[in-house]
């Protein structure tokens, strides 16, 4: 019975998250067109519904009613699997995102690694689509995307290591709640900038949207897709953008906490702060797209490998060094959890049993 209730709640929560994400994606596309319209002195969508608010629904309906075309030379299974996989991956990552204190579907110990793993797997959707389409443009787009995402993941991982050094936990809730003095925020600020640029590359967005690159390779990996398969790619891409914004909020902007630790703002519900901060980063995506021209491919690779990788690697060492020298490393629960009694008990056990204590390294800790 308890199992059933638990399962029911989990399913309900999952449904709420999925529906929420899908609505957010729909209105993110609307926001993109409005914001870019504003930046380019146009109006954006205005005809469908009041202020064009029903435009995303109309777009969805249009894509739904179109014909799905599978190229004759395509590998059918992989061709159809790719958009589904991309879409599914962009949804499952939301399971570990804490929207407010305690508002999380799965509060796992390795939340940040889970997010990183899911975001590193999205490359398969793209590369499978590129290969299965059996088209040169699509294949080029898939290869570009693969190398781009693998390159930028490395520096993203190192940036995450910087944050983890300061917070001392892989759990997303603990990352948000770990105390951050001003000097730590100053220390992490350059990494925040690099992270913002890296998430643009990781989600294949302008100015790093070379996998799509309309002007060079017509539409990249999506060139052969139509109707719902195309819509799934679209949903996956925007969902990944919102996810990356949420990840930035959690890692750098303090999640659901009020900004700059202002206690008098604490009466506002945490989810509002979380949404506001996420929207800020989401706006950055649109701003960058409307402002910057597309990178050249070799420049993109140079930025990833020759600028970001050394910079973030050096910053990991700098962060570790500063934390070490100011004795500011977050306390290590592993050692705190070990009581002296338990240690002596093990010591006795192991030295009884065939003198294993020399090899097990337990003595080092007792010293």
């Amino acid at each position: 019975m308890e199992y059933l209730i638990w399962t029911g709640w989990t399913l309900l929560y999952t449904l709420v998250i999925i529906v929420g994400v899908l609505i957010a994606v729909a209105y993110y596309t609307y926001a993109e067109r409005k914001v870019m319209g504003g930046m380019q002195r146009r109006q954006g969508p205005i005809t469908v519904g009041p202020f064009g608010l029903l435009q995303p629904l109309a777009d969805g309906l249009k894509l739904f009613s179109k014909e799905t075309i599978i190229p004759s030379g395509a590998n059918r299974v992989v061709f159809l699997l790719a958009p589904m996989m991309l879409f599914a991956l962009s949804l499952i990552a939301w399971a570990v995102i804490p929207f407010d204190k305690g508002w999380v579907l799965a509060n796992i110990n390795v939340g940040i690694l889970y997010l990183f793993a899911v975001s590193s797997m999205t490359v398969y959707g793209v590369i499978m689509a590129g290969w299965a389409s059996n088209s040169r443009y699509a294949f080029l787009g898939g290869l570009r995307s693969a190398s781009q995402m693998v390159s930028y993941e490395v520096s993203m991982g190192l940036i995450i290591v910087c944050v983890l050094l300061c917070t001392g936990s892989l759990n997303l809730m603990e990352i948000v709640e770990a105390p951050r003095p001003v000097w730590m925020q100053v220390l992490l600020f350059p990494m925040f900038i690099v992270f913002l640029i890296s998430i643009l590359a990781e989600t294949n967005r302008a100015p790093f949207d070379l996998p799509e690159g309309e002007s060079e390779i017509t539409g990249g990996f999506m060139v052969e897709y139509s109707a719902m398969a195309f819509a799934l790619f679209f949903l996956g891409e925007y969902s990944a953008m919102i996810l990356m914004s949420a990840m930035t909020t959690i890692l750098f902007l303090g999640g659901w906490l009020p900004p700059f630790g202002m206690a008098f703002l604490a009466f506002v519900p945490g989810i509002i702060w979380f949404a506001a901060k996420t929207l800020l980063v989401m706006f950055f995506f649109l701003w960058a797209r409307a402002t910057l021209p597309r990178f050249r491919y070799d420049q993109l690779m140079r930025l990833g490998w020759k600028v970001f990788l050394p910079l973030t690697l050096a910053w990991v060492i700098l962060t570790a060094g500063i934390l070490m020298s100011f004795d500011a490393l977050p306390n290590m629960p592993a050692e705190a959890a070990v009581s002296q009694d338990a240690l002596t008990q093990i010591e006795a056990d192991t030295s009884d049993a065939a003198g294993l204590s020399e090899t097990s390294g337990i003595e080092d800790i007792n010293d």
Partner: protein
Amino acid sequence: MIIQALAFYLFAGILVVSALMVISARNPVHSVLFLILGFFNSAGLFILLGAEFVAMIMVIVYVGAVAVLFLFVVMMLDISFADLRKGAMQYVPVGLAIGAVLLTELVMAYGVWAFAPDALANRGAPLIRFEGATNAESLGQVLYTDYVLAFQLAGLILFVAMVGAIVLTLRTRPGVRRQNVGEQHARKREDVLEIRKVTPGTGV
């Protein structure tokens, strides 16, 4: 408990099937995709064991990086694997012979395997001191504190291997025009641009 057992059989079953498909799929790209499915399911098995850190690292490293490179290479290969497979049957006797030798050796090794009585009693004992600690903390304690030298040595060996691979494959091609950002930025207006007054009819 029953859910865990079901999950185990699901992951293990898919793992075995996908491992079989890796070696029997006709298309090499399908092989790599099944390999990825296999990695993914073994990560699921790690989670069932309570080793969530290892599971995530498995997905990040093997699925997210290693297999991407595999897929990358296999997709770019222009080899007809059907042609390669034509003559494969003639090697079957050799393969069977090697397999038989390996199997005999394994049987001989494990047939006489016996645990020392103390070792059995001691199994898992060093883990007690990590009670209450997360995966990452206990692994970090073991790798970076207890066995830091061995771990660093392994890292150095990998590093040397990487440098070796790069040195072996690096070729410098003369005559390739490359962009040098520093040079471009160092260019001054006076070096490349000259403004002259030209009177009509005389030329420069």
